[in-house]
């Protein structure tokens, strides 16, 4: 598993190439890239600054990745999250999951994103024509996280 919280941009193709290197059991790679979008809550966005809790952000991403490894049949996971100031169109986050079969890869990838969105200590401050503002959490993100709670899971997480 590779977890990185970094200011620098990432090369998704290189990350995916590393993820699958020398593992012929992998038949499926599901990945997600999050980008700085031009619009949020109806206003034009030109850039954003990402703050995080350095002592906690990477460790909780590792914990989320380990939960995914326990829950689905997957071979490996890469999660990269950027911090600092990002311009319109820049990459924010990469989640890539390698698995023998596609369904496990898709589920694990979406699971990691849903938990990252609601549990990892990152905060976005957007720049708009009206000035800077902290991004408000979306109720749909919390609903997405809740949808993964497995009542039959007794692993204690």
């Amino acid at each position, binding site marked *: 598993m590779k977890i990185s919280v970094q200011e620098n941009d990432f090369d998704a193709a290189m990350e995916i190439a590393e993820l699958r290197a020398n593992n012929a059991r992998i038949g499926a790679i599901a990945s997600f890239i999050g980008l700085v979008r031009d619009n949020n809550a109806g206003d034009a966005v030109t850039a954003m600054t990402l703050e995080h*809790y350095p002592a906690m952000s990477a460790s909780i991403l590792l914990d989320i990745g380990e939960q995914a490894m326990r829950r689905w049949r997957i071979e490996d996971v890469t999660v990269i999250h950027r911090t600092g100031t990002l311009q319109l169109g820049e990459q924010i986050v990469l989640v890539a999951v390698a698995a023998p079969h596609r369904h496990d890869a898709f589920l694990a990838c979406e699971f990691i994103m849903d938990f990252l969105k609601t549990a990892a200590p*990152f905060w*976005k401050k957007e720049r708009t024509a009206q000035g800077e503002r902290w991004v408000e*959490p979306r109720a749909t993100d919390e609903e997405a996280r809740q949808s993964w709670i497995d009542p039959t899971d007794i692993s204690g997480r």
Partner: protein
Amino acid sequence: MTITVLYFARLREEFGIAEESIPFAAGTVAALLDILRGRGPEWAQQLSAECNYRVAINQKLVDVGAAIKAGDEVAIFPPVTGG
């Protein structure tokens, strides 16, 4: 005893402080929050029950009933919005 308290994002800005070491008699997160709310109206408002802040002790999310020990790092922050 002494603990470290960290504030992030909107709370860091509203309180004008990112990190502080404060004396704290052993107790729960709720007891710490009561002390912080006593610092003034801005603190009371941002840490009111309606505000959706989260608390972590030593980088693990906890409930307000969690106990704080000497040397702990307590972080208080708004709902996360990464990804």
